[in-house]
């Protein structure tokens, strides 16, 4: 988890730099496409934030502050990928006024994240 978190965080930071570059150099690829701009912004925000959460969860588990089962871990790791990647792909290839079909990865990731978050919280409570 900790390895995935740091490597993914690095990847989303690179993506953030790319967005900054596109905005800074007034690229029409981003600035003239409101759907893409919105999706990329969401992808970057979710990608960085969720990977920080993943790192935090991994550290807590190592310090034995919380217990994370195999299924929960898998769900959390999948959610951290699905959510931002869903936004990213939906912005890369999208319909005229709607995000691309990849947007359906987002609710799937959100449900996994929700379940994982509850499960970790619940197990911490039971401790």
């Amino acid at each position, binding site marked *: 988890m900790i390895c995935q978190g740091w490597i993914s965080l690095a990847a989303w930071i690179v993506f953030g730099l790319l967005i900054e570059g596109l905005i800074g150099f007034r690229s029409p690829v981003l600035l003239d496409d409101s759907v893409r701009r919105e999706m990329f912004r969401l992808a970057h925000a979710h990608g960085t934030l969720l990977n920080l959460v993943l790192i935090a969860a991994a550290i807590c588990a190592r310090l034995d502050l919380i217990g994370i*089962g195999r*299924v929960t871990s898998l769900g959390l790791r999948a959610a951290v990928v699905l959510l931002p990647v869903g936004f990213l792909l939906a912005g890369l290839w999208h*319909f005229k*006024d709607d995000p691309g079909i990849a947007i359906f990865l987002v609710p799937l990731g959100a449900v996994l994240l929700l*379940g994982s978050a509850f*499960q970790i919280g*619940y197990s911490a409570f039971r401790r």
Partner: protein
Amino acid sequence: MITPRSASAVTTCGFTLLAVALVAATVHLATPDYAGIRAGRIDAGYLESNNCRKCHEGNYATWHATFHRTMTQEANPKSVLGDFERDNTITYQGVRAEMVRENGRYWMKLTGVDGKKQQLEIGRTVGSRRIQQYLTKNGDQWARLPIAYDLVQRRWMHLNGSFFYPDGSDYKQHLTEWNSNCVFCHNVKAQPHLDWTDRSWNTEVAELGIACGACHGPAGEHAQHALSPVTRYRWHMKDPTARSLAVTNPAKLDSDRSAMVCGHCHGQRLPEPRDRIHTMMSDGDPYDAGKNLLEFYRPVQREDKIGSFSFASRFWQDGSPRLTAYEYQGMTRSKCFRAGKPGQRITCISCHEMHGGDPRGQLTEKMKTNAACTQCHQQFSTPVQLVEHTKHSAESSGSLCYNCHMPSIVYGVMSAHRTHDITIPRPDETVRFDKPNACNLCHLDWSVNRAIVASRRLWPNAFIDSKIGDRRFDEPEGQRALFAGDAVMRGLTAAAMTPANDVNGPLLLEAMQDRYPIVRYFAANALAAQYPAMPKPDYLASPEKRNAALQGWYSLFMPEQLRAAKEAHQRLSVGRVEVDVEVGE
């Protein structure tokens, strides 16, 4: 046996499902209901543009930038463009009008020749590009006020300065009932709701101004289904099993139906059959975008009459429209249209762009060039081919297709407009139909007969049968048309003389004596365009004030030039036939 692990899994799944259900319920409660909107009315299913914006942000933005949107608005600081504070009075024909804003409300205060005062509250505005007109509510009716604001010249004007009526006409002649006239084209899905029993009105529209519904029709069912992302993505993925609820898209209609969407307003029309007017006034406009316009209306033609009222003055003698709001009639007369295959021929959006381009004319920069015509007429694409065809240098105005095939021989809203009757320029049409011709609109110093001779020499095959006119057409056409034509011809000729030059300057000064203010308007603009340092003559001022203002202008020209212009004016205006024209848009 339930282990702690399975209990935990069940709790987690239960919580997750509950949370998802709560989110779904909240979203459902917050979802708007478009189904059955305005049910039972003639505008059932019509949405306001704000509802379309939620999905079609880009199209909303491009529409929002157009002058269509601001055609009719409630009067407020954002919509009112006239000067209600500083230069806010105008006296015309002895009646003084003062426009004021008091406590956030807008007023037009009229003081008649007899000193009688009238105060009218402005409730709505009409127009936002060239002129802005104002509406006042009188009981259950809206009426157009006689004073408008000229947005180009930044001044107040009497509407007589916009129509083809001479000075001395009734000051309130152009007061128009909005509920039964303007409402039909300046809004979406008009419903005058006239009660024929007591003649009361309860006029409603689907939306003020020309908004999404005007071109896309009712969209309630479409929007209702589009609320579901599953439905939207089935549409996006072109799922053949998904129910198609697409709104009318003029770009996807066959070309004739597409033209009808614009022709509904840009093609003055009569109800068909005529007695349909009764249900139109009581229930509303039966046409929706995408339907066959000709099932409900017939475009007005030159020979049409309503009782003793004839529409002939709105057309040149050959039947070509000479006012705006007849573009549909113009285009459908064109060979470009008639020679095409029905449903696959030229249509309005072959050149115009409704979601982009310059809002002034709804044309992209590309379509302002010969590219508009070379879409089909590719044989004139290269400079060599162009020069061979036009006999003018490739860069000259004589090689811009529009100038010869769509000359500015149409009047509307204080401007000369290009005709949409796309034709081969024929100078002999001036002889036959008393209609301006493209050649002489540039070559104003040439006579029509000279243009006919030149056209026969340059394009012998096309003009072999054109006959020269009588001696009247030996006069320089700028001079002849400016003094011998009717007011529309005179006004358009003065517009063609913009900016003035040393030759036509004296003629334009003579035109400032014209009885028709609209002719003086174009003459004043032409003079001011060339001599910006000179005080611009006021085309609506009294004759005394006007003449006083013109004295300085006379010194710009040689006395013999001025004498010749006066002589030409007197000689050519003898016996001319005046035709007053109400510009019914």
